[in-house]
């Protein structure tokens, strides 16, 4: 089980933009850099070849994203920036301010901004999702959220929950859930949603509807344990979606990054309760 080791909130981030060629020169977010001088931590990423952004043709954009990525990687490796009088650590604000001054063409960088970040290794990707919101395949989306759930519960507990299983729903239909622990007449379902993405609202509604349909199935007692991936620093204002999922699932919804241990404890308890109820029922 991966627990949230809360670090000091000294992180900063900046957004890479693609400066479009149209007369209005839109600036489309295509990547992020996240760093902390105190933690000596730095990472950046631009749109991957497999990702898409609806507003700009990918064929136009990707060569610039790759060129910027290769160039900045080289600067980071050498710990040196063009025109800089001395070496600067890439985990410092000065580094990224200088990069911003250098990127004056199609790829540009925003001013550094502070962000509340506790587990950068995980939250970096969520930050990227929140800022860039690339179009990714549905299967990959589900894989990512399942990865976050598996990481939260840990491998031992995860073994109890069968991944991508179909369960009974309203009117005899079946729906696929992320993970489920099933016993006769009882089941515990682990589900999740990525609230960092642009389509968070649609994903929330879909999950809420799915939970209602499963709850409406006859003859099965279901417990939902729902985790969500939230953007760090409250970006995108996804709190109301989390609350909506709490209302529809009838129980607390956990932030899979910052409340991973609580999520795991709840899942473990639910399995134990399910076993106990089953024994009592048989007796």
């Amino acid at each position, binding site marked *: 089980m991966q627990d949230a080791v809360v670090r000091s909130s000294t992180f900063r981030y900046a957004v890479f933009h693609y400066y479009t060629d149209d*007369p209005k020169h839109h600036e489309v977010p295509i990547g992020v850099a996240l760093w902390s001088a105190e933690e000596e931590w730095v990472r950046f990423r631009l749109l991957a070849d497999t990702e898409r952004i609806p507003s700009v043709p990918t064929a136009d954009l990707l*060569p610039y994203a790759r*060129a910027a990525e*290769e*160039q900045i990687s*080289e600067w980071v490796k050498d710990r040196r920036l*063009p025109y800089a009088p001395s070496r600067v650590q890439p985990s410092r604000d000065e580094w990224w301010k200088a990069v911003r001054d250098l990127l004056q063409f199609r*790829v540009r960088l925003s001013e550094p901004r502070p962000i509340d970040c506790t587990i950068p290794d995980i939250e970096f990707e969520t930050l990227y999702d929140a800022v860039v919101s690339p179009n990714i395949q549905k299967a990959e989306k589900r894989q990512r959220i399942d990865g976050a759930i598996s990481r939260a519960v840990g491998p031992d507990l995860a073994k109890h929950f069968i991944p991508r299983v179909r369960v009974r729903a309203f009117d005899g239909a079946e729906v696929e859930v992320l993970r489920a622990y099933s016993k006769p007449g009882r089941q515990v379902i682990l589900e999740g949603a990525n609230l960092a993405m642009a389509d968070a609202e649609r994903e929330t509604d879909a999950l809420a509807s799915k939970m209602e349909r499963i709850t409406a199935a006859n003859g099965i007692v279901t417990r939902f344990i729902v985790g969500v991936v939230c953007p760090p620093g409250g970006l995108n204002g996804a709190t109301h979606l989390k609350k909506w999922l709490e209302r529809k699932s009838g129980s607390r919804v956990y932030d899979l990054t910052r409340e991973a241990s609580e999520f795991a404890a709840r899942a473990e308890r639910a399995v134990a309760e399910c076993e106990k109820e089953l024994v009592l029922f048989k007796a």
Partner: protein
Amino acid sequence: MDQNHSGAPGLEYVVKFRQGKPGAAALISEVVCACLFEIAGVHVPEVALVHVRAALADSYTRSAVAPYPVEPGLHFGTRFIANAYPGPPTTFQQIADPQQLVDIWVVDCWVMNVDRMNYGNILMSPDGRGRWRLTAADQSDCFGGSRTFSSGSAPYATRGCLEPYKFLERAVTEAGGIRSIRKSIDGVRKAAGYLELAITRIPDSWWSQSGVIPGLVIDGLRQRASRIEEIIKVAYWEGISDAGRGGTVLDL
């Protein structure tokens, strides 16, 4: 551009303002070399002379347009290349046509450029197939650098070849070995035939401000063009070509 600053809307230029003696020499270097590079077959940004009136120069000086006083008169501009990305290339695979890198290096050796590999002095434009075409974007530090040039001591007779640029040897191999070097040399010789033309493009005020003597530029570059094979050490490149025949050149 029009003298009343009423250039066609939508056209953007990057302007280098003339600053003192070395600054004027740098602009001479820009204009002469842009002309020579183009004739030699190297892509350069479109050049413009930009006239700034006294009132505008005064306004620029009082604002933050430039961190130094802007003088009225003619300055140097290049058409902004909207789709460019600042090089130099970070991988060989980025280069669409390796001959372009060979050409830039050979012509740079001829005109004694000192800072081609600085960030932004090569611009890259997408070729539509995931690679990049190269543009020689800054010719202000040819003739051994603008200070050397303005002091009248451009090292025409003594300056040898430049260090090979990153990926140059592989570019030579992939562009046809010694044939690619010979092609670039042909470009230099062709451009040397247009030295007088290149010189005529310079405003008189720049010559007088810089102290550079046009005749010395013509004689110096003509003499270097006649020695270009020796300057770039053609024998070395013939050796590279022979070695390349035996197999694949690897980037290690």
